[in-house]
C-alpha cells in the first residue's frame, strides 16, 4: 500500500472532513509517541474503565485485558479502544476486523469508542475497500468472519427524522490517525 506522500495527505484530509461531517472527532498524530500521549489524555478524560483490543492495549497507560471479558463486564466499560484494519477516505469510515466477539462488543457497548487508524491503511474509495474485503473473506480459514465499517457514532433518526447521536452504540467516536505506524 505504498503511495506518494502527497496522495496520503489528500486522503487524510478527505477522511478527516468526511468523518467530521458525520460527528466523529478526528485527531492526527505524526508518530506513535504522540499517539500514546493522546490516548493517555483520553483515558484521563474518560474516567472509569477503559479497555483496549490486544493490538493497541500496549499503547495505553494501563488497560485491563479484554480477552475473556463477559458481555456484562464489557457493559461497564466507559471507553473502548480498537485498531482499524482499514479507513475509507470517501466516507470517513473506519473498518474493523475484530479477532473475537469481545472485540466486536467493545466497539459498540461503551459510550466512547476510540479507533486508532494508521494513515497507510486508508483507502480512497468504497470500491477499493471492497476489493480488500473480498480478499479477506475469501480465505478458507475464515480469517474475517466479521468485518464492520463504522462511519460516525451510533445514531437514530427514527423519531421525527431528527438525528440523535448515541442510540444503542457509542455516543462519541474518536478517530486517532497516526503516521509512522510500523505495518505499512
Amino acid at each position: 500500500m505504498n503511495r506518494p506522500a502527497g496522495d496520503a495527505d489528500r486522503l487524510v484530509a478527505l477522511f478527516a472532513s468526511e468523518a467530521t461531517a458525520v460527528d466523529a472527532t478526528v485527531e492526527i498524530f505524526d508518530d506513535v509517541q504522540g499517539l500514546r500521549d493522546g490516548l493517555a489524555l483520553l483515558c484521563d478524560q474518560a474516567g472509569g474503565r477503559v479497555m483496549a483490543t490486544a493490538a493497541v492495549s500496549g499503547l495505553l497507560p494501563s488497560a485491563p485485558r479484554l480477552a475473556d471479558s463477559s458481555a456484562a463486564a464489557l457493559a461497564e466499560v466507559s471507553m473502548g479502544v480498537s485498531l482499524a484494519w482499514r479507513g475509507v477516505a470517501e466516507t470517513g469510515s473506519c473498518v474493523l476486523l475484530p479477532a473475537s466477539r469481545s472485540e466486536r462488543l467493545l466497539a459498540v457497548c461503551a459510550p466512547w469508542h476510540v479507533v486508532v487508524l494508521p494513515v497507510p491503511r486508508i483507502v480512497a474509495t468504497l470500491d477499493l475497500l471492497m476489493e480488500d474485503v473480498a480478499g479477506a473473506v475469501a480465505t478458507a480459514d475464515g480469517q474475517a468472519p466479521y468485518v464492520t465499517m463504522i462511519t460516525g457514532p451510533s445514531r437514530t433518526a427514527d423519531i421525527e427524522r431528527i438525528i440523535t447521536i448515541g442510540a444503542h452504540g457509542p455516543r462519541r467516536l474518536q478517530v486517532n490517525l497516526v503516521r509512522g505506524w510500523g505495518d505499512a
Partner: protein
Amino acid sequence: MPEPFARRYRDAVADPQLAANLLTFQRGWRTMRDARFDAASTSGAPDFDDLRARLAAAKDRVLADHETYIEQFSRMARANGVIVHRAADGDAAAAIVASICRERGGSLIKTKSMVSEEIDLNHRLAAQGIAAIETDVGEWIMQLRGETPAHMVMPAIHLNRRQIAATLRDATGHPVSDEDVADQVRTVREALRPEFLSAHVGLTGANALIANTGSIMLVTNEGNEGLLTAIVDVQVVVAGIEKLLPGLDDAATQLRLLARSATGQAITTYTTFITAPHDGQELHVVLLDNGRSAMRADPEFSDALRCIRCAACASVCPPYAAVGGQVFGYIYSGAIGLVNTPFHNGLDNAAGPQSLCVSCNACQDVCPVDIPLPAQILAVRRRVVEQRGVGALKRVVFAVWRRRWLFNAVFDVATWLSAPLRRNGELRLPRPRAHRWRTVPAPAVRPAHRLIPAHTPGRRDGPLAHSAARGQRVALFVQCLTDRFSPEVAAAAVRLVAACGADVVVPRAQHCCGLPMFDSGDWPTARVLARHTIAALESSDADWIVSTANSCVVAVVHEYESLFKEDPAWARRARALAARTVDLATFLDRVAQLPDGALADAPADHGPYTYHPFCQTRTVLRADGSARRLLQDVCGIQLRELTEANICCGFGGSTSMTAPEVGRAIAERKLGNVDGSGATTLVTDNPGCVLHLRAAASARKGRPLRARHLAEVLAEQLDGVDARERQAAGASPGRPTPGSAQKRS
C-alpha cells in the same frame, strides 16, 4: 395483522396529526436525498442514473439465473460453517426459527427485519410461547403500540415526539420528556440494554447476501446489530431470496444508493459483512421464498424483485403522505408495497391500498433500481378488477362513457338540467362533507366539438406564421374532458397551431382515449376506446397529432403499448400513431420551434405566474422544459419558483373522487406551495390538474388564484401580439404599445 383497509383508511384520515407528521418527514427527506445525489455527481463520483443502471443490472443478472446464485451462496456459506435453510413460506420459516429458539431457552431478540414483518413472525412465535423483542428504536415503539411499521426504514415516522413519549412512558413506567428526543432515545437504550445482555438467540434480516463469498451484509445506524450479533450464541438471519448480489463490488453500488435513498445519509453508520460464525457461535441463514419465485416467473412483476427496501417510493409518494404506510400498503408500504403485497400477503390485501395510487410516477423517478412501479401498480389494479370487477358505480359510468352518442346525450341533458345551478362556471350543488374542499365545475354550454370548426387553415400572416411547422397538417386530439369542461382550451390550441402556419383538423369521430378505464383496471373497455381513438386519428391523415391533454398523450404514446401487448396488428397501428403524437408544448417548442420573444407581450395584468408541470409531463413526456421555455423565453413571462413543483396536484384520475381526503391533502399541499411562491396565476398543462386545482382554489375563500391551462396563457399572449400588430398596422407605425417592452414578474 392489520385491520381491514376501509377501517385503516377511515382512522388515518380522521387523524390530522398523521398527515402533518408525514408531510414534514417527506419534505426533509427529499431535500437531504437530492442534496446527497447532487453532491456525489458534482464531485465526479458516479451519479444516480449511473449507479442505478449498475445495480439494476447486477440484480437482473441474479434474477436471470436465480437458483444458480442461491446455490452458490448456500455452498459458500456452508463452507464457512453457516447452517443454511430454505423456507417456502412464513409457516416454514417460523417453524425453523421456533425450533432454534426452543433449543436455546425460548426467547428472541431482533434487529429490524421487514421479512419477519412480512411473515408476521413475532405473533407466530408468541403463539408458541416464544417472546420476540424488537431493538430498533422505531420498530420497538411499533411493537409497544401493536402496530405494523408505517415506513420500511423509519417504522414510526408517522408519529410525533409527544405520541412517542406517551408510548415510552406507558412501557417503562419512567418519566419521559415530551419534547426532548434525545431523552426518548436514552429511554429506549436503557430499557433495552438488559435485554441485549441476557439474550441467547438473535434474529436479523439481511440487506444483501453475497453469492461468491457467502457473506451477509447488514446496514444499520443504531449499533443494535453490533451488540446483538456479538452477544448471542445463536444468530438467525431471515432473508428473502431476492437479496442476492453476485459479489462485493455490487455491494458497494448498493451501499451508495441505499443510504442516500433511504435516509439521505452518504452512508449508514454501520455496514457489516458477516461471513462465518465467531468463537463458537452458531449462525443460521433462512432463505425465504414466500411468493418470490411466483413473482420472478411473472414477467409483469419480476423487476420488482430488484427492490432493496430503501422506501424512497414511500418517502416521495404524495398519497402516502396523506394516509401513511399502514394504509398506503399492507406490511410493505409505498409503491413497492402495492406491488409485492399480492405475492407475499395475497391479492385481497392489495386491493384497497392500490386504489390510492395517483399514477404520478414519482416513485419510479427516485427508485434506485428503476423498478417500473407505476406500470406494476396498474397491473395489480387490473388483476383486482379481473377478480372482483370494477365496482357497480364505475361499471355504469364506463358503460355510458364507452359509447360516444350516449356520453354526449347524457352530458347534453345534464348540462341542460343543471343550467339553473350554474354560477361563474361552477354548479351550486350540495356536496358530502368529504368533498366540500372543492367546488363542482359546470359543463360547458357548447362542447368543443360544436365550437371548433372541423378544419382551420394555417395562417399565412401573424407573429408565428413562419414557424417550422408551416404547411404541416395537424390533427387536434381534443379529449373528452376538455370537450365538455374546457372547450376554450381546445379553441386556444387551434388558434396557436393555426398561427404557426399549420392546417388544423379536428377529427369528428374522436372520443375518449380509454385512459380512465385503463387507470381503473378495466382494460377490455379501455381497448375498445383505444381502438376507436386510433382509427379516428389515423383517418385524419395528419403529420402530427397534437393534444392539450397531456395525460391522454401519455396514454397514446405509452399505455397503448401495454394494452395491445398481445395484439400485434393494433400494437403496430398504436406505435405508428404514437410516433407522431405530441403534447402542445412539445409541438410549439420542438416542431414549430418558436423563437424567443415570438409571443412577448404584456396584456392584462394577472399578477405573478408560476408553472406546475403535470406529473407525467415531467416523468414520461419530459416536456416540462418545453413548457417553461415557451412561458419564459417565447412569452417573456418570468415564472416564480414553485417549491415541490415535482409533486402531484392530487387529481389522480378517479382517486380524488373515491378517496377525496387524499385528493384534498395533496391539493392543499400544492396550493400552499403556490401561495408560497407569491404567484396569483398558476399555469399547468393537463386539463384534469387545471380543473382539480381550480375547484380546490375556488372553494377556499379570500385567496383568489387563476388556474390556467398552458394553451390559454399562450393564446392570450398570441391575441395580445396580434392586437398590437393590428394596431401598429392601422395607427402610426413605430409607436410602442403600453407595457410591450417590459417583462411581467
